[in-house]
Protein backbone atom coordinates (compact mmCIF):
# COMPACT_ATOMS: atom_id res chain seq x y z
CA UNK A 1 0.00 0.00 0.00
CA UNK A 2 2.81 2.36 0.94
CA UNK A 3 4.61 1.40 -2.27
CA UNK A 4 1.46 2.08 -4.23
CA UNK A 5 1.05 5.52 -2.69
CA UNK A 6 4.69 6.28 -3.21
CA UNK A 7 4.44 5.37 -6.87
CA UNK A 8 1.27 7.36 -7.32
CA UNK A 9 2.91 10.45 -5.94
CA UNK A 10 6.00 9.96 -8.08
CA UNK A 11 3.87 9.25 -11.13
CA UNK A 12 1.76 12.36 -10.73
CA UNK A 13 4.82 14.46 -10.08
CA UNK A 14 6.65 13.26 -13.18
CA UNK A 15 3.38 13.38 -15.10
CA UNK A 16 3.01 17.05 -14.32
CA UNK A 17 6.41 17.66 -15.85
CA UNK A 18 5.32 15.76 -18.97
CA UNK A 19 2.15 17.83 -18.98
CA UNK A 20 4.17 21.05 -18.96
CA UNK A 21 6.20 19.92 -21.96
CA UNK A 22 3.11 18.71 -23.75
CA UNK A 23 1.29 21.99 -23.14
CA UNK A 24 4.27 23.81 -24.56
CA UNK A 25 4.13 21.61 -27.63
CA UNK A 26 0.45 22.37 -28.13
CA UNK A 27 0.90 26.10 -27.70
CA UNK A 28 3.66 26.12 -30.31
CA UNK A 29 1.65 23.93 -32.63
CA UNK A 30 -1.30 26.29 -32.42
CA UNK A 31 0.63 29.52 -32.66
CA UNK A 32 3.25 28.61 -35.20
CA UNK A 33 2.17 25.28 -36.65
CA UNK A 34 5.51 23.78 -35.71
CA UNK A 35 6.00 20.42 -34.05
CA UNK A 36 8.90 21.24 -31.82
CA UNK A 37 11.48 18.48 -31.63
CA UNK A 38 13.81 20.63 -29.54
CA UNK A 39 11.40 20.68 -26.60
CA UNK A 40 13.38 18.09 -24.65
CA UNK A 41 16.60 19.99 -25.24
CA UNK A 42 14.96 23.21 -24.08
CA UNK A 43 13.90 21.44 -20.92
CA UNK A 44 17.43 20.16 -20.38
CA UNK A 45 18.58 23.73 -20.91
CA UNK A 46 16.46 24.79 -17.93
CA UNK A 47 18.16 22.18 -15.81
CA UNK A 48 21.57 23.27 -17.06
CA UNK A 49 20.77 26.85 -16.12
CA UNK A 50 19.90 25.64 -12.63
CA UNK A 51 23.31 24.05 -12.37
CA UNK A 52 25.12 26.96 -14.01
CA UNK A 53 23.71 29.65 -11.72
CA UNK A 54 23.44 27.70 -8.48
CA UNK A 55 26.10 25.01 -8.68
CA UNK A 56 28.79 26.62 -10.76
CA UNK A 57 28.52 30.37 -10.16
CA UNK A 58 27.04 30.11 -6.62
CA UNK A 59 24.72 33.05 -7.09
CA UNK A 60 22.07 34.21 -4.67
CA UNK A 61 18.95 32.09 -5.46
CA UNK A 62 16.82 35.15 -6.15
CA UNK A 63 19.33 36.58 -8.62
CA UNK A 64 19.74 33.13 -10.15
CA UNK A 65 16.01 32.83 -10.78
CA UNK A 66 15.80 36.26 -12.38
CA UNK A 67 18.85 35.58 -14.52
CA UNK A 68 17.46 32.24 -15.60
CA UNK A 69 14.10 33.76 -16.55
CA UNK A 70 15.80 36.49 -18.57
CA UNK A 71 18.08 34.07 -20.38
CA UNK A 72 15.20 31.69 -21.13
CA UNK A 73 13.22 34.56 -22.65
CA UNK A 74 16.25 35.45 -24.74
CA UNK A 75 16.52 31.84 -25.89
CA UNK A 76 12.83 31.93 -26.78
CA UNK A 77 13.25 35.00 -28.96
CA UNK A 78 16.26 33.54 -30.77
CA UNK A 79 14.50 30.20 -31.15
CA UNK A 80 11.48 31.92 -32.67
CA UNK A 81 13.63 33.89 -35.10
CA UNK A 82 15.45 30.76 -36.21
CA UNK A 83 12.66 28.20 -36.33
CA UNK A 84 9.58 30.19 -37.23
CA UNK A 85 10.12 33.39 -39.20
CA UNK A 86 12.10 31.90 -42.10
CA UNK A 87 9.37 29.32 -42.64
CA UNK A 88 6.28 31.48 -42.68
CA UNK A 89 5.57 30.86 -46.34
CA UNK A 90 7.00 27.39 -46.81
CA UNK A 91 5.15 24.72 -48.74
CA UNK A 92 6.72 21.98 -46.68
CA UNK A 93 6.04 22.35 -42.95
CA UNK A 94 8.45 19.45 -42.47
CA UNK A 95 11.34 21.84 -43.13
CA UNK A 96 10.36 23.60 -39.90
CA UNK A 97 10.43 20.32 -38.05
CA UNK A 98 13.94 19.53 -39.31
CA UNK A 99 15.00 23.01 -38.30
CA UNK A 100 13.87 22.39 -34.72
CA UNK A 101 15.86 19.15 -34.71
CA UNK A 102 18.92 21.09 -35.78
CA UNK A 103 18.27 23.80 -33.21
CA UNK A 104 17.84 21.13 -30.54
CA UNK A 105 21.25 19.69 -31.43
CA UNK A 106 22.81 23.12 -31.16
CA UNK A 107 21.19 23.78 -27.78
CA UNK A 108 22.30 20.48 -26.27
CA UNK A 109 25.82 20.82 -27.65
CA UNK A 110 26.05 24.35 -26.28
CA UNK A 111 25.11 23.00 -22.88
CA UNK A 112 27.81 20.35 -23.13
CA UNK A 113 30.50 22.70 -24.42
CA UNK A 114 29.89 25.77 -22.33
CA UNK A 115 28.34 24.53 -19.09
CA UNK A 116 29.42 21.02 -18.23
CA UNK A 117 30.00 17.68 -19.86
CA UNK A 118 29.44 15.70 -16.69
CA UNK A 119 26.22 14.67 -15.06
CA UNK A 120 25.76 17.04 -12.17
CA UNK A 121 23.39 17.15 -9.24
CA UNK A 122 21.64 20.30 -8.09
CA UNK A 123 20.51 21.05 -4.55
CA UNK A 124 16.75 21.02 -4.21
CA UNK A 125 15.11 24.38 -3.57
CA UNK A 126 13.82 23.11 -0.22
CA UNK A 127 15.88 20.22 1.11
CA UNK A 128 14.51 17.38 3.22
CA UNK A 129 11.31 15.40 2.95
CA UNK A 130 8.01 14.82 4.63
CA UNK A 131 7.78 11.59 6.64
CA UNK A 132 4.40 9.99 7.34
CA UNK A 133 5.36 6.69 8.85
CA UNK A 134 7.26 4.93 6.10
CA UNK A 135 5.68 7.12 3.46
CA UNK A 136 8.22 9.68 2.29
CA UNK A 137 7.68 12.66 0.04
CA UNK A 138 10.61 14.98 -0.64
CA UNK A 139 9.62 18.63 -0.27
CA UNK A 140 10.81 19.19 -3.80
CA UNK A 141 7.76 17.21 -4.97
CA UNK A 142 5.44 19.67 -3.24
CA UNK A 143 7.33 22.40 -4.91
CA UNK A 144 6.82 20.78 -8.31
CA UNK A 145 3.10 20.39 -7.63
CA UNK A 146 2.80 23.96 -6.54
CA UNK A 147 4.71 25.59 -9.35
CA UNK A 148 3.11 23.54 -12.12
CA UNK A 149 -0.35 24.19 -10.72
CA UNK A 150 0.46 27.88 -10.56
CA UNK A 151 1.66 27.90 -14.15
CA UNK A 152 -1.41 26.05 -15.35
CA UNK A 153 -3.71 28.51 -13.62
CA UNK A 154 -1.63 31.32 -15.06
CA UNK A 155 -1.97 29.93 -18.56
CA UNK A 156 -5.70 29.49 -18.13
CA UNK A 157 -6.05 33.07 -16.90
CA UNK A 158 -3.93 34.33 -19.76
CA UNK A 159 -5.74 32.55 -22.55
CA UNK A 160 -9.27 32.62 -21.21
CA UNK A 161 -9.52 35.86 -19.29
CA UNK A 162 -6.89 38.31 -20.43
CA UNK A 163 -7.25 40.40 -23.58
CA UNK A 164 -3.65 39.67 -24.52
CA UNK A 165 -4.30 35.92 -24.45
CA UNK A 166 -7.40 36.25 -26.56
CA UNK A 167 -5.45 38.20 -29.12
CA UNK A 168 -2.81 35.47 -29.06
CA UNK A 169 -5.29 32.68 -29.64
CA UNK A 170 -6.99 34.68 -32.38
CA UNK A 171 -3.65 35.07 -34.09
CA UNK A 172 -3.00 31.38 -33.68
CA UNK A 173 -6.33 30.35 -35.18
CA UNK A 174 -6.20 32.43 -38.33
CA UNK A 175 -3.06 34.40 -39.01
CA UNK A 176 -4.37 36.06 -42.13
CA UNK A 177 -7.57 37.33 -40.56
CA UNK A 178 -5.69 38.44 -37.45
CA UNK A 179 -3.26 40.37 -39.61
CA UNK A 180 -6.16 42.12 -41.29
CA UNK A 181 -7.62 43.01 -37.90
CA UNK A 182 -4.40 44.71 -36.98
CA UNK A 183 -3.13 42.12 -34.54
CA UNK A 184 0.67 42.03 -34.56
CA UNK A 185 0.89 38.28 -35.27
CA UNK A 186 4.67 38.26 -35.35
CA UNK A 187 4.77 39.70 -31.87
CA UNK A 188 2.15 37.30 -30.48
CA UNK A 189 3.97 34.32 -31.98
CA UNK A 190 7.22 35.47 -30.47
CA UNK A 191 5.49 35.94 -27.14
CA UNK A 192 4.13 32.40 -27.35
CA UNK A 193 7.60 31.08 -28.03
CA UNK A 194 8.94 32.93 -24.98
CA UNK A 195 6.15 31.64 -22.74
CA UNK A 196 6.72 28.09 -23.93
CA UNK A 197 10.48 28.19 -23.48
CA UNK A 198 10.03 29.72 -20.04
CA UNK A 199 7.50 27.05 -19.08
CA UNK A 200 9.59 24.16 -20.31
CA UNK A 201 12.75 25.60 -18.83
CA UNK A 202 11.03 25.90 -15.47
CA UNK A 203 9.98 22.26 -15.71
CA UNK A 204 13.62 21.39 -16.32
CA UNK A 205 14.76 23.50 -13.38
CA UNK A 206 12.22 21.82 -11.08
CA UNK A 207 13.18 18.32 -12.17
CA UNK A 208 16.93 18.94 -12.02
CA UNK A 209 17.26 17.98 -8.31
CA UNK A 210 15.23 14.80 -8.85
CA UNK A 211 16.81 13.51 -12.07
CA UNK A 212 20.20 15.26 -12.02
CA UNK A 213 21.43 17.49 -14.81
CA UNK A 214 22.38 15.84 -18.10
CA UNK A 215 21.36 15.79 -21.70
CA UNK A 216 19.43 12.58 -21.15
CA UNK A 217 16.69 14.78 -19.68
CA UNK A 218 15.66 15.35 -23.28
CA UNK A 219 14.09 11.88 -23.45
CA UNK A 220 11.18 13.45 -21.56
CA UNK A 221 10.15 14.83 -24.92
CA UNK A 222 9.08 11.42 -26.23
CA UNK A 223 6.87 10.91 -23.16
CA UNK A 224 5.37 14.33 -23.75
CA UNK A 225 4.45 13.26 -27.29
CA UNK A 226 2.77 10.20 -25.81
CA UNK A 227 0.95 12.45 -23.34
CA UNK A 228 -0.33 14.58 -26.20
CA UNK A 229 -1.93 11.64 -27.96
CA UNK A 230 -3.25 9.87 -24.88
CA UNK A 231 -4.85 13.01 -23.47
CA UNK A 232 -6.45 14.11 -26.68
CA UNK A 233 -4.63 15.98 -29.35
CA UNK A 234 -4.71 19.74 -29.34
CA UNK A 235 -6.33 20.69 -26.04
CA UNK A 236 -4.51 22.00 -22.98
CA UNK A 237 -6.61 20.05 -20.42
CA UNK A 238 -5.98 16.98 -22.57
CA UNK A 239 -2.26 17.54 -22.26
CA UNK A 240 -2.50 17.74 -18.46
CA UNK A 241 -4.60 14.59 -18.19
CA UNK A 242 -2.39 12.82 -20.72
CA UNK A 243 0.78 13.84 -18.93
CA UNK A 244 -0.46 12.55 -15.58
CA UNK A 245 -1.73 9.35 -17.26
CA UNK A 246 1.66 8.72 -18.83
CA UNK A 247 3.42 9.44 -15.54
CA UNK A 248 1.16 7.00 -13.68
CA UNK A 249 1.45 4.30 -16.34
CA UNK A 250 5.20 4.60 -16.25
CA UNK A 251 5.37 4.52 -12.49
CA UNK A 252 2.95 1.59 -12.04
CA UNK A 253 4.69 -0.39 -14.79
CA UNK A 254 7.60 -0.90 -12.38
CA UNK A 255 5.37 -3.50 -10.66
CA UNK A 256 5.96 -6.00 -13.41
CA UNK A 257 8.82 -4.72 -15.53
CA UNK A 258 11.71 -2.31 -15.32
CA UNK A 259 13.44 -3.04 -18.62
CA UNK A 260 10.40 -2.67 -20.86
CA UNK A 261 9.08 0.63 -19.47
CA UNK A 262 9.19 2.19 -22.92
CA UNK A 263 7.23 -0.69 -24.37
CA UNK A 264 4.47 -0.21 -21.80
CA UNK A 265 4.22 3.55 -22.26
CA UNK A 266 4.33 3.56 -26.04
CA UNK A 267 2.25 0.40 -26.24
CA UNK A 268 -0.39 2.35 -24.31
CA UNK A 269 -0.07 5.10 -26.92
CA UNK A 270 -0.65 2.65 -29.77
CA UNK A 271 -3.57 1.15 -27.87
CA UNK A 272 -5.17 4.55 -27.43
CA UNK A 273 -4.66 5.31 -31.11
CA UNK A 274 -6.29 2.03 -32.04
CA UNK A 275 -9.21 2.14 -29.63
CA UNK A 276 -9.87 5.82 -29.01
CA UNK A 277 -7.95 7.92 -31.52
CA UNK A 278 -9.39 11.17 -30.20
CA UNK A 279 -7.72 10.60 -26.81
CA UNK A 280 -9.17 10.53 -23.30
CA UNK A 281 -10.63 14.03 -23.33
CA UNK A 282 -11.14 14.45 -27.04
CA UNK A 283 -14.63 14.47 -28.44
CA UNK A 284 -15.58 12.55 -31.52
CA UNK A 285 -15.87 14.74 -34.58
CA UNK A 286 -18.45 13.76 -37.15
CA UNK A 287 -16.38 12.63 -40.06
CA UNK A 288 -17.34 12.74 -43.68
CA UNK A 289 -18.09 9.46 -45.27
CA UNK A 290 -15.37 9.97 -47.80
Amino acid sequence: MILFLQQTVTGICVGLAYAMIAMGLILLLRAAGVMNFAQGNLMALGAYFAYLFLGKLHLNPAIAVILAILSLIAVGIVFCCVCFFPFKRTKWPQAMLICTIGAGTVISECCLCFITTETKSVDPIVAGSLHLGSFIIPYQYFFIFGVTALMMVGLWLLFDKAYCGRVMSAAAQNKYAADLLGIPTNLTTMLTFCIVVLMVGTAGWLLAPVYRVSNSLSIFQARAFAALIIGGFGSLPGAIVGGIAVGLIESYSTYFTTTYKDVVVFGALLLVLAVRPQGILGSKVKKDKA
Partner: protein
Amino acid sequence: MACLQVEDISISFGGLKAVQDVSFALEPGEIMGLIGPNGAGKTTTLNLISGLYACDTGRVLLNGKDVTDKKAYERARMGLGRTFQTPRFLSRSTVGENMKLGTDLADQMGFLKSFFGKKGNDFLDEVDQYLEIADLTVNWKDDISSLSYGQLKRLEIVRALLSHPKVLLVDEPAAGLNAKELEKSVALMRHAAEKGVGIVLIEHKMDMIMNVCDHIVVLNFGKMIAHGTPEEVQSNEAVIEAYLGR
Protein backbone atom coordinates in the same frame (compact mmCIF):
# COMPACT_ATOMS: atom_id res chain seq x y z
CA MET B 1 -32.87 6.38 -69.06
CA ALA B 2 -31.75 9.08 -66.67
CA CYS B 3 -28.01 9.09 -66.08
CA LEU B 4 -28.43 10.63 -62.64
CA GLN B 5 -31.45 10.23 -60.46
CA VAL B 6 -31.75 11.75 -57.00
CA GLU B 7 -34.60 10.63 -54.79
CA ASP B 8 -35.55 12.47 -51.61
CA ILE B 9 -32.04 13.08 -50.32
CA SER B 10 -31.65 14.94 -47.03
CA ILE B 11 -28.88 15.78 -44.63
CA SER B 12 -28.78 17.79 -41.45
CA PHE B 13 -25.80 19.29 -39.62
CA GLY B 14 -26.70 19.39 -35.96
CA GLY B 15 -30.16 20.94 -35.91
CA LEU B 16 -29.82 22.59 -39.30
CA LYS B 17 -31.59 20.77 -42.13
CA ALA B 18 -29.23 21.71 -44.91
CA VAL B 19 -30.92 19.67 -47.62
CA GLN B 20 -34.44 18.29 -47.35
CA ASP B 21 -36.09 15.80 -49.68
CA VAL B 22 -34.54 16.99 -52.91
CA SER B 23 -35.27 14.86 -55.95
CA PHE B 24 -34.62 15.31 -59.64
CA ALA B 25 -33.52 13.36 -62.68
CA LEU B 26 -30.94 14.22 -65.29
CA GLU B 27 -30.94 12.88 -68.85
CA PRO B 28 -27.71 12.30 -70.79
CA GLY B 29 -26.73 15.37 -72.76
CA GLU B 30 -28.86 17.62 -70.63
CA ILE B 31 -27.57 20.65 -68.74
CA MET B 32 -29.43 21.19 -65.49
CA GLY B 33 -29.10 24.35 -63.45
CA LEU B 34 -29.20 24.26 -59.66
CA ILE B 35 -29.92 27.72 -58.33
CA GLY B 36 -30.97 29.36 -55.13
CA PRO B 37 -29.94 32.12 -52.73
CA ASN B 38 -26.71 31.80 -50.78
CA GLY B 39 -26.92 29.09 -48.14
CA ALA B 40 -29.75 27.31 -49.91
CA GLY B 41 -27.85 24.01 -49.88
CA LYS B 42 -26.66 23.86 -53.47
CA THR B 43 -23.07 22.84 -52.80
CA THR B 44 -24.25 20.49 -50.05
CA THR B 45 -26.50 18.79 -52.60
CA LEU B 46 -23.52 18.40 -54.89
CA ASN B 47 -21.47 16.96 -52.04
CA LEU B 48 -24.26 14.48 -51.32
CA ILE B 49 -24.38 13.40 -54.94
CA SER B 50 -20.63 13.04 -55.25
CA GLY B 51 -20.44 11.19 -51.95
CA LEU B 52 -18.36 13.62 -49.89
CA TYR B 53 -21.25 13.65 -47.39
CA ALA B 54 -23.39 10.65 -46.54
CA CYS B 55 -27.13 11.06 -47.11
CA ASP B 56 -29.34 10.83 -44.03
CA THR B 57 -32.25 9.65 -46.18
CA GLY B 58 -32.94 9.04 -49.83
CA ARG B 59 -31.13 7.43 -52.74
CA VAL B 60 -28.75 8.47 -55.47
CA LEU B 61 -28.82 6.49 -58.69
CA LEU B 62 -26.10 6.70 -61.27
CA ASN B 63 -27.02 5.16 -64.62
CA GLY B 64 -29.75 3.22 -62.90
CA LYS B 65 -27.40 1.81 -60.24
CA ASP B 66 -27.91 2.67 -56.60
CA VAL B 67 -24.73 4.35 -55.36
CA THR B 68 -26.04 5.66 -52.04
CA ASP B 69 -23.71 3.40 -50.04
CA LYS B 70 -20.74 3.85 -52.31
CA LYS B 71 -17.78 5.97 -51.26
CA ALA B 72 -16.83 9.14 -53.13
CA TYR B 73 -13.94 7.54 -55.01
CA GLU B 74 -16.10 4.61 -56.10
CA ARG B 75 -18.71 7.00 -57.47
CA ALA B 76 -15.97 8.88 -59.29
CA ARG B 77 -14.85 5.64 -60.89
CA MET B 78 -18.42 4.93 -61.96
CA GLY B 79 -18.43 8.09 -64.01
CA LEU B 80 -19.22 10.98 -61.71
CA GLY B 81 -16.91 13.92 -62.31
CA ARG B 82 -17.00 17.19 -60.46
CA THR B 83 -15.33 20.54 -60.01
CA PHE B 84 -15.19 22.69 -56.90
CA GLN B 85 -16.12 26.20 -55.96
CA THR B 86 -12.47 27.03 -55.46
CA PRO B 87 -10.38 24.94 -57.84
CA ARG B 88 -8.76 22.00 -56.15
CA PHE B 89 -5.49 20.92 -57.69
CA LEU B 90 -2.38 19.17 -56.51
CA SER B 91 -0.67 22.36 -55.44
CA ARG B 92 2.83 20.88 -55.37
CA SER B 93 2.70 19.15 -58.76
CA THR B 94 2.95 20.12 -62.40
CA VAL B 95 0.10 20.78 -64.81
CA GLY B 96 0.82 17.50 -66.59
CA GLU B 97 0.52 15.41 -63.44
CA ASN B 98 -2.78 17.06 -62.61
CA MET B 99 -4.18 16.38 -66.06
CA LYS B 100 -2.95 12.81 -66.07
CA LEU B 101 -4.90 12.13 -62.89
CA GLY B 102 -8.03 12.76 -64.94
CA THR B 103 -7.00 10.33 -67.64
CA ASP B 104 -6.02 7.77 -65.02
CA LEU B 105 -9.60 7.80 -63.87
CA ALA B 106 -10.83 7.32 -67.44
CA ASP B 107 -8.44 4.42 -68.02
CA GLN B 108 -9.30 2.76 -64.70
CA MET B 109 -5.80 1.37 -64.77
CA GLY B 110 -4.60 -0.68 -61.82
CA PHE B 111 -1.34 0.23 -60.16
CA LEU B 112 0.55 -2.79 -61.41
CA LYS B 113 -0.69 -2.42 -64.95
CA SER B 114 0.28 1.21 -64.96
CA PHE B 115 3.72 0.26 -63.65
CA PHE B 116 4.48 -2.08 -66.54
CA GLY B 117 2.24 -0.87 -69.33
CA LYS B 118 3.11 2.37 -71.07
CA LYS B 119 0.30 4.80 -71.60
CA GLY B 120 -0.23 5.82 -75.21
CA ASN B 121 -0.10 9.42 -76.26
CA ASP B 122 -3.65 9.47 -77.54
CA PHE B 123 -5.02 11.47 -74.64
CA LEU B 124 -2.80 14.38 -75.58
CA ASP B 125 -4.92 15.03 -78.69
CA GLU B 126 -7.97 15.10 -76.49
CA VAL B 127 -6.29 17.51 -74.08
CA ASP B 128 -5.31 19.83 -76.91
CA GLN B 129 -8.85 19.75 -78.26
CA TYR B 130 -10.27 20.74 -74.88
CA LEU B 131 -7.59 23.35 -74.31
CA GLU B 132 -8.42 24.89 -77.66
CA ILE B 133 -12.11 25.08 -76.80
CA ALA B 134 -11.26 26.57 -73.42
CA ASP B 135 -8.78 28.94 -75.05
CA LEU B 136 -6.04 27.92 -72.64
CA THR B 137 -2.34 27.76 -73.25
CA VAL B 138 -0.46 25.93 -70.57
CA ASN B 139 2.96 24.45 -70.42
CA TRP B 140 2.77 20.80 -69.47
CA LYS B 141 5.75 20.99 -67.14
CA ASP B 142 4.86 24.21 -65.33
CA ASP B 143 4.00 24.18 -61.67
CA ILE B 144 0.26 24.36 -61.18
CA SER B 145 0.71 27.29 -58.82
CA SER B 146 2.00 29.44 -61.68
CA LEU B 147 -1.46 29.56 -63.30
CA SER B 148 -4.03 32.26 -62.63
CA TYR B 149 -7.39 31.67 -60.95
CA GLY B 150 -9.31 32.00 -64.21
CA GLN B 151 -7.07 29.47 -65.90
CA LEU B 152 -7.39 27.03 -63.00
CA LYS B 153 -11.15 27.34 -63.05
CA ARG B 154 -11.29 26.27 -66.70
CA LEU B 155 -8.53 23.73 -66.35
CA GLU B 156 -10.51 21.99 -63.65
CA ILE B 157 -13.40 21.43 -66.05
CA VAL B 158 -10.92 20.10 -68.61
CA ARG B 159 -9.53 17.70 -66.02
CA ALA B 160 -13.01 16.50 -65.11
CA LEU B 161 -13.83 15.97 -68.80
CA LEU B 162 -10.62 13.99 -69.33
CA SER B 163 -11.93 11.37 -66.93
CA HIS B 164 -14.79 10.70 -69.41
CA PRO B 165 -17.58 11.23 -66.91
CA LYS B 166 -21.18 10.33 -67.57
CA VAL B 167 -22.35 12.97 -65.14
CA LEU B 168 -20.46 16.18 -64.47
CA LEU B 169 -21.16 18.36 -61.47
CA VAL B 170 -19.90 21.91 -61.95
CA ASP B 171 -19.82 24.25 -58.97
CA GLU B 172 -19.94 27.95 -59.85
CA PRO B 173 -17.84 27.98 -63.00
CA ALA B 174 -18.38 31.72 -63.48
CA ALA B 175 -17.12 32.94 -60.11
CA GLY B 176 -14.08 35.13 -60.65
CA LEU B 177 -14.07 34.79 -64.44
CA ASN B 178 -14.43 37.61 -66.92
CA ALA B 179 -17.03 37.48 -69.70
CA LYS B 180 -14.71 36.03 -72.31
CA GLU B 181 -13.36 33.33 -70.03
CA LEU B 182 -16.87 32.44 -68.99
CA GLU B 183 -17.87 32.06 -72.61
CA LYS B 184 -15.11 29.51 -73.04
CA SER B 185 -16.22 27.57 -69.97
CA VAL B 186 -19.74 27.44 -71.37
CA ALA B 187 -18.36 26.25 -74.68
CA LEU B 188 -16.57 23.43 -72.86
CA MET B 189 -19.74 22.37 -71.11
CA ARG B 190 -21.80 22.56 -74.31
CA HIS B 191 -19.20 20.42 -76.05
CA ALA B 192 -19.43 17.84 -73.27
CA ALA B 193 -23.22 17.87 -73.35
CA GLU B 194 -23.19 17.23 -77.08
CA LYS B 195 -21.15 14.12 -76.38
CA GLY B 196 -23.88 12.90 -74.04
CA VAL B 197 -22.58 13.99 -70.64
CA GLY B 198 -25.27 15.04 -68.19
CA ILE B 199 -24.25 18.25 -66.43
CA VAL B 200 -25.45 19.74 -63.16
CA LEU B 201 -24.50 23.38 -62.93
CA ILE B 202 -24.54 25.63 -59.88
CA GLU B 203 -24.39 29.30 -60.70
CA HIS B 204 -25.43 32.73 -59.52
CA LYS B 205 -25.26 34.47 -62.91
CA MET B 206 -28.88 34.23 -63.97
CA ASP B 207 -28.42 35.24 -67.59
CA MET B 208 -25.94 32.45 -68.06
CA ILE B 209 -28.16 29.89 -66.36
CA MET B 210 -31.20 30.88 -68.39
CA ASN B 211 -29.13 30.73 -71.52
CA VAL B 212 -27.38 27.43 -71.02
CA CYS B 213 -29.70 25.21 -69.07
CA ASP B 214 -32.41 22.95 -70.41
CA HIS B 215 -33.91 22.49 -67.01
CA ILE B 216 -33.63 24.27 -63.68
CA VAL B 217 -34.05 23.23 -60.07
CA VAL B 218 -34.47 25.97 -57.46
CA LEU B 219 -33.51 25.42 -53.83
CA ASN B 220 -34.29 27.60 -50.85
CA PHE B 221 -33.46 26.72 -47.23
CA GLY B 222 -32.61 23.21 -48.34
CA LYS B 223 -35.99 22.59 -49.93
CA MET B 224 -36.78 22.32 -53.59
CA ILE B 225 -39.22 25.12 -54.34
CA ALA B 226 -39.50 24.83 -58.10
CA HIS B 227 -38.29 23.01 -61.14
CA GLY B 228 -38.91 23.21 -64.84
CA THR B 229 -37.68 24.95 -67.96
CA PRO B 230 -36.05 28.37 -67.60
CA GLU B 231 -39.26 30.11 -68.70
CA GLU B 232 -41.40 28.25 -66.20
CA VAL B 233 -38.99 28.96 -63.36
CA GLN B 234 -38.72 32.65 -64.24
CA SER B 235 -42.46 33.09 -63.90
CA ASN B 236 -42.79 30.95 -60.79
CA GLU B 237 -44.25 32.81 -57.82
CA ALA B 238 -42.21 30.99 -55.16
CA VAL B 239 -38.96 31.64 -56.99
CA ILE B 240 -39.61 35.34 -57.32
CA GLU B 241 -40.43 35.45 -53.65
CA ALA B 242 -37.26 33.64 -52.66
CA TYR B 243 -35.06 35.91 -54.72
CA LEU B 244 -36.73 39.25 -54.21
CA GLY B 245 -38.40 38.76 -50.84
CA ARG B 246 -41.87 40.04 -50.19
